[in-house]
């Protein structure tokens, strides 16, 4: 989507199509009115782009018409409210104005394109942001602690042996019923601790993935024979894989810093007096 929105040709076609659709809709709505509410091409471009970024699709002419209608309605009501003086002395409106000003500041405070070295340094300084937590995909056969007494001959070692033979029995038919699920996919280590406890998680994450059944591994509930389908170690993703995120994070941070500076500059133009303060 991002790449698409950046494409100048797509940009042009999109705007042209939408301006046409939006203009038609607006003309129909506003022609009977006195006064002028202008919906500019920029307005419509902004609406279309917002729509596209939220929905992932370009707005249809009907969507566009609805957005323009809303815009005209809001504008008319806002003008009427200002005419009646409803905007004066209202905390909410004052806060919104301040908020809007700070948004404007964030547009003003532009950040230059970072060079490769800057990004690499950011990446090295923030490894936690680019590290994936360890996760595991596994199946397990639960063995109740009382199993040995109740069903002799089905101990963990003989089950394990049969499971790893060339023609193993269907694992789903083995073991005791288990109240949680019998197979988990990409379960992060934190979730494993939450569901099975820390000891089980530690033991499970120390096993290697492979076709064979392993164990038993102990949990608070009993013993588990496990088949590790896949295990992802926690790993720092290579810079190349996360470059886009690094750049975005760096920009966010740079922008935040620049914004704070810009707001501080604005405040410095005023003399601030706080009653009661030293």
């Amino acid at each position: 989507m991002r790449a698409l929105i950046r494409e100048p040709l797509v940009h042009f076609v999109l705007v042209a199509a939408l301006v046409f659709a939006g203009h038609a809709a607006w003309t129909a709505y506003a022609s009977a009115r006195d006064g002028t509410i202008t919906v500019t091409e920029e307005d419509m471009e902004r609406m279309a782009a917002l729509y596209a970024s939220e929905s992932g699709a370009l707005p249809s002419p009907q969507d566009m018409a609805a957005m323009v209608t809303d815009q005209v309605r809001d504008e008319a009501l806002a003008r009427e409210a200002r005419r009646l003086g409803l905007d004066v002395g209202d905390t909410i409106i004052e806060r919104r104005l301040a908020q809007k000003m700070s948004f404007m500041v964030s547009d003003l405070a532009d950040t230059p394109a970072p060079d490769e070295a800057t990004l690499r340094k950011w990446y090295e300084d923030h490894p936690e942001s680019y590290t994936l937590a360890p996760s595991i995909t596994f199946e397990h056969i639960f063995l109740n602690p009382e199993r040995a007494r109740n069903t002799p001959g089905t101990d963990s070692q003989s089950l394990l042996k049969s499971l790893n033979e060339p023609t193993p029995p269907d694992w789903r038919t083995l073991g005791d019923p288990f109240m949680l699920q019998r197979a988990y996919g990409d379960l992060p280590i934190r979730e494993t601790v939450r569901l099975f406890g820390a000891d089980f998680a530690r033991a499970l994450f120390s096993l290697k993935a492979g076709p064979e059944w392993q164990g038993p591994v102990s949990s608070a509930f009993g013993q588990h024979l496990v088949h590790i389908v896949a295990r992802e170690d926690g790993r720092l993703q290579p810079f190349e894989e996360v470059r886009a995120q690094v750049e975005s994070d760096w920009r966010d941070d740079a922008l935040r810093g620049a914004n704070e500076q810009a707001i501080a500059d604005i405040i410095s133009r005023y003399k601030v007096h706080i009653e009661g303060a030293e």
Partner: protein
Amino acid sequence: MWKTLTLASTALALVACSGNKTEPTRVETAAAPETTVPEGATAGYNADRNAYFGDMHIHTRNSFDAYIFNVRRTADDAYRFAKGETIKHPSGFDMTIAGGPLDFYTVTDHAEYLGILPAMNTKGTALSEVPRAKDMFSTDPAKIVAAFQGVGASVRSGEKIEDMYDEPTITSVWQENIAAAEKYNEPGVFTTFSAYEFTSVTTQSEDGGFGGGNLHRNVFFRGEAPERAFSTLDSTNPEDLWDWMDLQRAEGRESIAIPHNSNVSDGQMFRLETYNGDPIDAAYAEQRMRNEPLVEVTQVKGTSETHPDLSPNDEWANFEIYDELLGSYDVSKTSGSYVREAYRNGLKLQEEKGFDPFRFGLTAASDSHVAGGSYSEKDYWSKIGIVDGLPFQRGSVPMPGITDWADQPVNQTTTNAKNWFSRWSASGLTGVWAEENTRDALFDAFRRKETFATTGPRMKVRFFGGFTYTDAMLTSPDLATQAYAGGVPMGGDLVGTGAAPQFIAWAVQDANSAPLERVQVVKVTSSGETIYDAACSGGAVPDAIHRCPDNGASVDIASCETSPGSGAGELKALWTDPDFDPAQRATYYVRVLENPTCRWSTWEANRNGTPPNPALPTTIQERAYTSPIWYIPPA
């Protein structure tokens, strides 16, 4: 403009990515469990249903009482807390959820004067100019208390304080809470509902305070929520709330209400008359059950299962009993205030008059007013705000500077601690059996009453009833599939065949809490109640009076260490009722008991290096209660 947009869409894409990462995905291998997964199901879908844990009773700064106790956290903060982030308590310390993120969470601010106090405390608003605002946010405690109690009195009487009742503010804050629920609801990962608390209280106390018989209930919307919330300022009568919910339902906005703290309802919550004192009838029962299929049985402010006076033969009935009316030192009437007695009265009504207004399932919650619930005795912060945020305020340690309980002074703080806060405890969570973690799946489970309540730990419990269950099922890996196929789960009606039913009671401990001591079946009929131990730890068998032997578990009070080796990770039994009468209605539910552990007050005393408060129990036996299965004799 395009540059800004590019950044925005990058941010969106990143959010989407990180969401996918934490989402457990189905195993797409050949050996994946063979269940039918419907089109559009979320990851983790399980036709045999998973247990999801959540808290559906949370207040933020927008609740009038929370705000006065310095709570400034928002609905946004509440949901972040439930997802594992750390937030601040008004007393200044950090709160992080015990046991990891929850599966669902719901903000239920008081609808009455919703968001009005924050507006009154914001300079420049019209609301900050009303005389009550000046008093409420003055530095004179007497004025603050009077102003606050006036609000409480208005909530109780239903008479609006005209200059404070600003409907546009209330409605817009209600919309904000809805928006926060929408923002954090993520199908398959984390569920929220649009919800609020209807704050009805009966008794009129002389001092104009908040004391009275508690008839509070939380209202939850399955999907779309209405523009405004029906509060006691519309009517204090819960039956009028049901009428409103019926009306909303007719317009496509489905909801349920869950009453709570019946323990301090002064006998009103399950009384056998209508709100206005008329006899109840079939229409009342039907409307109540349509709107209130569930009851919150335990929370910080005490447990409402039963009371020792009502259940003298239940050795576990004296559990976290709290019976003082809200905001007062008056004791609540016992009869009419507890769930088990209501089940019994319901059966009586059914047998005598043909209807039962109390055929509800069970849930639990914290009722935290500081946006985050404390579910662990080991890490407790009570629930109100700056008045109970610190150990000395809740009586687990003596007042600052004192080390001997004999020197504890009598003042407002110690009196409140003695009567109220020391008698509360870390609780509770609702467990829900649902196919997946979505609004629809959870709400369907609420309607089926396939829910259980815990006093904080995330132990899981299954309960099934049927007529074809066998011992072999207990060791069959597809036990749950067979149990669903051959009977009903908790919350269901079991219609008799003339034969004796079998029940499967099955519990596993919270892997991060204590092992289980025993699993019990509680049987209630119109003529009485019996507690049967169904499964004992250590492979022991219940004796002739249906009791497990002592499993030898102990707690060292000085260190809070528990004895290793006793208790079970899992308990499971095929149980038949030894006193079964095929012609008599009976309500069966399961109670699961953990081994004893230190109560919060003991943990806090140990950390403080002072002896535990001699007036308080040193240990607690955490537990879970399932929704019942109702046996109905053959016609």
